[in-house]
């Protein structure tokens, strides 16, 4: 199995074998993180840049440290304070970054499809670190890594994704990734936050937590944005919390060894209760470590290797 992609834009395009390779490669990477000397020389002489058009300290830091553990030079571009405000076009910004000699760009953007646009217009490798409501492939990969690490397999698991499915790139990427491993995927949330024709993605949609969580192996809780309430998609955060906040009373519907995930940052008391977040089923902190490991695996697979084949 080889990983021959210039870019990683979404889980939809990845094959099961490619996902497996990334997850397998992340295992030794996690070992590196746990050592005293958390650095290998693998990507010495390579340069990567994180370009975030939307705030996310968590994901950006994760990519940054992943690059550093592998000895790549890592630069963060704080875009809000930079050229956008001077009215520079995205194409020009990208070109400027490219000619500085970066090998890889990690991009977060609030608008769906922007990494696709960028990837088409640059010779750098592009990793999508979340685009609008479209995809967030590295989050799905770290979720899958965490599930596989705990459950031993992904095959045939029942996974419930809870919350604002409509606006969630995490949900979409998880659905694409997990369905390649034969998981039974359920989405649950208020009907205004379930996207149109979602069942054509091969998932089952629920409005009731009790029904959705019955016998599930994994619950992935999504972050709810206050602005959705302001847009009139549900009446109040209280009502949302009453119906959809994952709390201990819900866990009894699920399997006894159910795993609880959350991509962070959490709104405690809104989409997840503190008892659950800190309880024995939660792997929320482990997810963060796994995120670094998975991103190291990706950086290694995408930035190592020459562009042209060299015999022998």
């Amino acid at each position, binding site marked *: 199995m080889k990983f021959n992609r210039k870019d990683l834009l979404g889980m939809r395009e990845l094959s099961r074998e490619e996902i497996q390779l990334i997850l397998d490669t992340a295992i030794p990477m996690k070992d590196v993180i746990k050592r005293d000397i958390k650095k290998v020389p693998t990507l010495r002489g390579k340069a990567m840049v994180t370009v975030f058009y939307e705030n996310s300290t968590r994901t950006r830091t994760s990519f940054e440290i992943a690059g550093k553990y592998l000895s790549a030079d890592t630069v963060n571009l704080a875009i809000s304070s930079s050229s956008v405000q001077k009215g520079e076009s995205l*194409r020009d910004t990208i070109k400027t970054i490219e000619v500085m000699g970066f090998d890889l760009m990690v991009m977060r953007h609030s608008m*769906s*499809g922007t990494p*696709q646009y960028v990837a088409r217009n640059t010779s750098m490798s592009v990793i999508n670190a979340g685009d*609008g*409501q479209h995809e967030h492939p590295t989050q799905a990969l770290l979720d899958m890594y965490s599930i596989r690490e705990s459950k031993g397999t992904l095959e045939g698991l029942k996974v419930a994704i809870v919350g604002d499915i409509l606006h969630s*790139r995490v949900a979409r990427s998880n659905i694409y990734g997990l369905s390649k491993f034969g998981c039974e995927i359920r989405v649950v949330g208020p009907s205004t936050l379930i996207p*149109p*024709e979602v069942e054509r*993605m091969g998932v089952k949609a629920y409005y009731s937590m009790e029904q959705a969580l019955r016998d599930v192996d994994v619950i992935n809780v999504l972050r709810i944005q206050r602005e959705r309430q302001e847009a009139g998609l549900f009446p109040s955060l209280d009502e949302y919390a009453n119906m959809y906040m994952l709390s201990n009373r819900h866990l009894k519907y699920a399997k006894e060894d159910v795993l609880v995930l959350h991509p962070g940052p959490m709104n405690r008391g809104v989409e997840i209760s503190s008892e659950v977040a800190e309880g024995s089923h939660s792997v929320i902190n482990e997810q963060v470590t796994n995120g670094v490991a998975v991103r190291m695996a990706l950086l290694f697979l995408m930035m190592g290797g020459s562009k042209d084949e060299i015999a022998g």
Partner: protein
Amino acid sequence: MRLLVKGGRVIDPDNDLDQIMDLLIEDGIISQIGIDIDQTGAEVIDARNMLVCPGFIDMHVHLREPGFEYKEDIVTGTRAAAVGGFTAVCCMPNTQPVVDSAPVVRFIREKAEKAGLVRVYPIGTISKGQAGQELSEVADLLAAGCVAISDDGKPVVKANVMRNALEYTKMFGIPVLSHCEDMELSQDGQMHEGYFSTIYGLKGIPAAAEELMVARDIRLAELTGGHIHICHLSTKDSLELVRQARARGVNVSCEVTPHHLTLSDEILGDYDSDAKVNPPLRSAEHIQALIEALQDGTIDCIATDHAPHHREAKDCEFQLAAMGISGLETAVAVIMDRLVQEGQLDVYDMVRLFSCGPADILGLDGGTLNIGARADLTIIDPAAVRKVEPEKFQSKGKNTPFKGQILTGWPYITIVNGKIVAREGSIV
């Protein structure tokens, strides 16, 4: 000055004509149609295996002038029309300033006259400043040369304004061309709402955003007895509303674009903003309904909604990209290739939809091969194979989702007033 179009398949739906014949043009007028016309002293166009049609009319284009000459101007727009096989275009009034007064109408007509290629019929605004509040001076606009009114690009939000427009235009016998969109439902929408908007994570524009306004405008036409024309109709239920209204005797007509007939929302997966358009490309189910409606006569004409944009407006983040497709230079080839050659649309119906269809809606002098009529002709080579190369467009707008496609069936010669203005993709 004699021009003989020899041995072509002459198709004139206005006269129920479809036969291989010769057509003679003398001094800009169609003087004779028949077999073996004497060619003495005439310039001869060998039209064997060609379709000889009444000049095509595109009743919905944006020429962008005045105000947005960086997107298109009347010269480049009419050049695009000519090579696209159109002998006449109706230009929408959402320019800068908008076409809500006679001087702007005269400006456009003078510019078009000077360009000297195809006929340009301006359309005036429904409301002053296109603001949706007070009616424009319709009589004045018509006197200056407008053929209809429209606030295209913006829907008329207020029902009473639309009611008054329909009531008022009734006495002039012109249609109100309506851009049907409920802006609250379509707000921030990037593409058709459905499975693919879910997959691509783009905010959807539900079909209902169009249908609500189609229903309202039809009801207002019914109330007033005015003529409502639905611009760029794109959904299955809009068609159903038109059918039902017609059955009740409402004066309603509608147009559909080549892109809505041939491209589905699925193609937005690579976030190519050239396919971003309003109304959005719909799902396969709607496309099928549109094609059936072409066949059964529910749709009166094909119009491009030619919406040229400059590169920067498209070469950016998908969500920030402007909506619109530069359509004049591909319309005929797309319909020929995707619908006629595929057996989805009879060639005779295609000619009707491009010629007498729009002429009848607007009461234009054209769209026919009557003896004595002005010699506006579109000659099509159904066997011509060409690739869509936007960089070679006459239009300033290179924004087409058909780029790179190889299509069969292209305009061969465009004749306006008996004069050849374009031949095989080039201005003569």
